[in-house]
């Protein structure tokens, strides 16, 4: 925005924190949440200098950056190098979304025969260069804050950015979805229906949407703090649900989050382990 005069004459350009948005393997949905802050977008743009956001601006500036928002997971050798460079250039690095914090849905290939995956999708798999795993950003570089969700909640994103501007720690809950269902007055899916619900072991932040829409939580915000995954899995497996249904439920958008991964591997009769790092 170098051609645009500052709206406030008292704030010089160099004092505005420089924000950069980076994308790795992902669907763009989390960075879209920044554009979905319709009422806050232009005001945020006054407080921050958005200097690198390929999806939103054709003006791209080099680092260093004050705040880097990183979406997506590491699936190629070149991306493994790129995240190192971004880390070196960024004062605060925040990962946004399940791909960046846990490897995303594409981490399902950690359990699969990668060469066979490539052959089944591409006629010429030799043109496609990827790693056999999809891994979280924190597996590669130091991460200052993780924002969970598939997708992230835009209100939480605003909270994180405003906290950084105010130089305080972001306030995002680590409790499980169940508490938010109680607040919403939603009847418990796990108890009152035959649906499996991951609410007891999943971090809040979505607003407890799924149970309010008559379906079980599918864990898109990843494991809550100290989740008792094994107890919940065993309770479902007693007489409520088969491993054939429960394993895929644990193994979706946060499949490679350690707590979900270990529990899924324990109850999956067919799996060695998704721990392929």
């Amino acid at each position, binding site marked *: 925005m170098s051609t645009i005069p500052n709206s406030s004459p008292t704030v010089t350009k160099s004092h505005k924190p420089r924000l950069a948005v980076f994308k790795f393997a992902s669907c763009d*949905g989390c960075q879209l949440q920044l*554009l979905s802050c319709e009422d806050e977008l232009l005001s945020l743009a006054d407080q921050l200098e958005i200097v690198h956001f390929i999806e939103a601006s054709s003006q791209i500036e080099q680092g260093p950056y004050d705040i880097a928002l990183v979406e997506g997971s590491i699936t190629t050798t070149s991306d493994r190098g790129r995240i190192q460079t971004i880390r070196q250039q960024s004062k605060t690095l925040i990962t946004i979304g399940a791909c960046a914090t846990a490897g995303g849905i594409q981490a399902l290939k950690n359990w699969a025969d990668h060469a066979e995956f490539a052959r089944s999708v591409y006629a010429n798999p030799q043109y496609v260069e990827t790693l056999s795993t999809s891994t979280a950003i924190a597996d590669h570089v130091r991460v200052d804050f993780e924002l969970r969700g598939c997708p992230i909640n835009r209100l939480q994103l605003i909270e994180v950015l405003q906290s950084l501007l105010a130089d305080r720690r972001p306030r995002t809950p680590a409790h499980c979805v169940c508490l938010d269902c109680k607040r919403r007055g939603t009847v418990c899916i796990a108890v009152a229906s035959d649906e499996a619900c991951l609410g007891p072991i999943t971090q809040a932040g979505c607003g407890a949407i799924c149970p309010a829409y008559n379906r079980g939580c599918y864990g898109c915000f990843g494991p809550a703090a100290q989740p008792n995954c094994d107890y919940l899995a065993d309770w479902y497996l007693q007489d409520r649900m088969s491993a054939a249904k429960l394993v895929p439920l644990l193994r979706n958008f946060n499949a490679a989050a350690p707590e979900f991964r270990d529990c899924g591997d324990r109850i999956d009769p067919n799996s060695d382990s998704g721990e392929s790092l």
Partner: protein
Amino acid sequence: MSPQQTRTIEVASITRVEGEGALKVVLENEKVVDVQLAIYEPPRFFEALLRGRPVEDTPDITARICGICPIAYQMTAVHALEVALGIEITPEIRELRKLLYCGEWIESHGVHMHLLHIPDFFHCHSSIELAKIYPAEVNRGLQLKKIGNHLLEVLGGRAVHPVNVTVGGFFRAPTRAELYSLVNELKWGLDAAIDVARWVADFTFPEFVGDYEMVALCHDTEYPMNEGDIVSTGGLRVAACDFEQSFVERHVRHSTALQAVRLPAETAYCVGPLARMNLNRDKLATTARQLSDDLGFDWPCFNPYASIVARALEVVHAFEVALNIVQEYRGCTPARLKYKYRDGEGAWATEAPRGLIYHRYRVCSDGTLAFAKIVPPTSQNQRQIELDLAAYLPRLLSSDDATIALECEKLIRSYDPCISCATHFLKLEMQRR
């Protein structure tokens, strides 16, 4: 004989598109010999990772292919799976699904027009820069997008990756009060969308007319969204489930996206708002239909830059349809139809905001998915974009490399390419030799 002239121009990252890719142009003695859209978006192998999973996971997982158009994936997936499982949905579920798709067209077209595309017409790098010149217009665009998102939230649970869509219908039908609460903003949105259409129709478009075969769904009585036959400006008409008889995907070295071409001659074709408008304009809702006449535009239109006018008219249409469905809504019981698992196969096509999208699945009697094939809009447009660039470049060659790169990006953006979708799409590298 003069030595060969070599000139290299690179656009490493095409900006203001969804996902990441690059462009490479090869010139020999100032003649364009090759144009390659390179999609370097890392592959995520969706078609492979769906196999063996419960069929009900399909709409949730395929939604994650694209954060801007998850409904397109969810709608195409559930319809294809319902064919495979022998489920016939009720008229009430059909109307709610159309309403949900209206929300996505409003949101996705809103993002593309106001945040990605319109800045090009005013030489701005971003909508934030555009907002300094046109604050009211940018804010109006953001409000329209917000209404689309709100509709998705009410009916789908959230705007990105909604949770309410499932095989056989919806997990929960909205109450009448929930949908009626949208009436006022939909009315405001319809009026605002008409103003946007009048605004963008007055833009100056580069003179460029492509020799296109345009492909879209065509429905007997409605502007296409969730169903229809596949028709083209070249005279094709086949059932949507027969897509693969007329189109095939090819895997090229420079891209992690597959490129779809038209059989038998493997020619390029294009999908999207212009294709839909050229083939279905008579079926627009009343206000949008009248507006399309009043704008003074020559239809059919084969100028890709003018696709923004088609997009704006489709937003008017989507508001009109949504308002009508909401006002007529009397509830939906059951919200979800029961079904039994069986061995079966089903294929379906719908109209994503950026064009026709096709899915085919095979299901097993144990309730798992055996096979998935997904053809997104951008892989269908990719070859045509390359040909457009090759046709457009000669008039630019006396310009400096930065200008050429910028003009190429503008042409690419007019297609609203979704590179995340196309991964199974872009860097400009220009070689002049």
